[in-house]
């Protein structure tokens, strides 16, 4: 089997995992196990996975409310993500955040954010920190084309460009700002035309080929890492489902949807793998493993305890560093595993 197949296989697996995770979460939503809003990433998986593959493990990522895909791509377990959707204590945000607010600080995932544009300057802030302390870390900030009209987007890019921050802004242009097609929301459809005004580089390409995403994002990430400033990347994509579970997506035709499904990143990757010499059996086995992982995640979420009532008030204010340390010492003494207990034990 070729080197290309070896590279592609783990990415195919991740994309398939995200797809199956979301299909099952849609089902769980219909069963009433998940509440609130649920925005699916189905159709856009190659962007999260390709970008993640181009990042170092300690790089920062900031995303909108359509955040399951990137959380899983960055290594949040399907168990923790599903438990979050189910509102369980074992969820990646302890059941406090839900679908729109997944977080994984340990893996540099600074969250899913639900006010459009509000996270763009925040992402620039993470990049500012990296420049400030002189580390080589890069931040990637995702948003939709709908966000490019809002003030927060422009202010974030303005400052990042001015201060040459190590960040890549990724516009996942899925052509619909909720129910409104982009020709009715943008005076200029090419989002990257804004880049020169902010003094930053840009790139623009289609997002169904995960290896292409990895390669092109890799260049932008490298530029940021070398201190050459931010890049505005526009990746054209399409979501196969509605804006959220409550949106039947009546604003687009069946024909359009079917045409776009021909560029589904997952069959595309599978075909590429087969062409590169991977056997059908081998790929089926990957899919079977993913199915087991999803079944396990659903089971884990189902069996987990509900979000803790203590959590209602426990996280409104962070305790002082001294108090935090004392609690950790206390937890170790009492044999309770705190979030850092395992790492501390190895010291």
């Amino acid at each position, binding site marked *: 089997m070729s080197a290309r197949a070896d590279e592609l296989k783990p990415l195919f697996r991740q994309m398939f995992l995200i797809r199956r995770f979301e299909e099952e979460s849609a089902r769980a939503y219909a069963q009433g196990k998940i*509440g*609130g*809003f649920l925005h699916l990433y189905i159709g856009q998986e190659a962007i999260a996975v390709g970008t993640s593959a181009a990042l170092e493990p300690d790089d920062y990522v900031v995303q909108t409310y359509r955040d399951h895909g990137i959380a899983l791509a960055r290594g949040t377990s399907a168990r923790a993500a599903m438990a*979050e959707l189910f*509102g*369980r204590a074992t969820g990646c*945000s302890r*059941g*406090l*955040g*839900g*679908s*729109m*607010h997944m977080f994984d600080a340990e893996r540099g995932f600074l969250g899913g*954010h*639900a*006010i*459009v*544009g*509000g996270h763009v300057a925040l992402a620039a802030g993470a990049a500012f920190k990296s420049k400030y302390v002189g580390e080589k870390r890069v931040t990637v900030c995702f948003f939709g084309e*709908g*966000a490019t*009209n*809002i*003030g*927060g987007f422009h202010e974030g890019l303005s400052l990042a460009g001015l201060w040459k921050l190590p960040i890549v802004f990724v516009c996942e242009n899925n052509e619909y*700002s*909720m*129910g*409104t097609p982009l020709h*009715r*929301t*943008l005076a200029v459809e090419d989002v990257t035309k804004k880049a020169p005004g902010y003094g930053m580089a840009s790139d623009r390409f289609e997002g169904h080929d995960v290896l292409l995403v990895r390669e092109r994002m890799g260049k932008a990430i490298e530029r940021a890492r070398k201190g050459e400033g931010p890049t505005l990347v526009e990746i054209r994509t399409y979501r196969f489902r509605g804006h959220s579970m409550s949106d039947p997506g009546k*604003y687009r035709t069946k024909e359009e949807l079917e045409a776009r499904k021909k560029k589904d990143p997952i069959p595309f990757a599978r075909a590429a793998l087969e062409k590169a010499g991977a056997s059908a059996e081998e790929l089926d086995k990957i899919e079977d493993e993913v199915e087991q992982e999803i079944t396990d995640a659903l089971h884990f979420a189902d069996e987990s305890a*509900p*979000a803790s*009532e203590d*959590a*209602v*008030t426990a996280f*409104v204010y962070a305790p002082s560093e001294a108090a935090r340390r004392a609690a950790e010492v206390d937890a170790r003494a009492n044999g309770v595993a705190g979030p850092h207990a395992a790492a501390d034990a190895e010291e």
Partner: protein
Amino acid sequence: MREVRYREAVREAILEEMERDERVFLMGEEVGYYQGAYKVTEGLLEKFGEKRVIDAPIAEAGFAGIGVGAAMTGLRPIIEFMTWNFSAVAFDQILNNAAKMYQMSGGQLRVPIVFRGPNGAARQVAAQHSHSMDPFYAHIPGLWVCAPSTPRDAKGLLKTAIRDDNPVVFLEGETLYNVKGELPDAGEEELIPFGQARIAREGDDCTIVTWGRPYYTAMEAAGKLSEEEGIECEVIDPRTLRPLDHDAIIESVKTTNRCVVVHEHWPYGGPGAEIVDRIQRDAFDYLDAPVLRVSSLDVPMPYALNLETLVLPTPARVLEALKKVTYR
């Protein structure tokens, strides 16, 4: 009379006022082709066309500002926020431009604008989407703030708001859109004046002041208390938080000598605290118990349903407060 849902009542008010006055237009996200994120504006684009029912991109500060500028120069905009949560990014336009223009210009420029949309927690939409924005806006002189609980109040107040020459913040209940209520028959116009409370339930034993979603919570608790203990509450819905019907509240407390204020916004300050302050000031000698408040807990809204239920006011919590002030 006829039965109409809250969402339809809001729509009727917009429709009638747009028919009446060419200067009135509607702008917001998904108000036109999508028919409204909550289907409030269904059919309006077809009736009035793209000139007057305008889909705006996601740019709240931008379209709120366009509304203020258009209002200063003679139009009468209705600006819809998909939810009031998103008004936070347009806060500067409302606080610094809409609310102050008339005063800053020495009375030269009026801002006849209505900002409207759903307010308050829905169900499990978590910390950034569950705000009860009442205190932020009720705090600002120069704005009127409406928070109707029933379809009838929603329609009558919105018509008044659209005709008013001042900026109005119109807080609709996100979870109230399906609530049904009686409305005057078609053709019978009803304008509900600002600053006039509605007595939703009569009683001599305790006053409840409440508005928005918690109005229903309080009514349920009042019903239970009557059944269980024979204690009769007078429920006052102020309907507008600015102006506030001071006299209706004070007069009721003078009769009942007790009061519980039930609201969804956080307990620190806000209209809830304002009402309590007025009662202690103007009905001090009539009080037989401290005035209590039932509010959301003082925390950002958690996602999990079991936790959200703990945070929002419940009939049980209202009942507990009522029993406390009536010494049961």
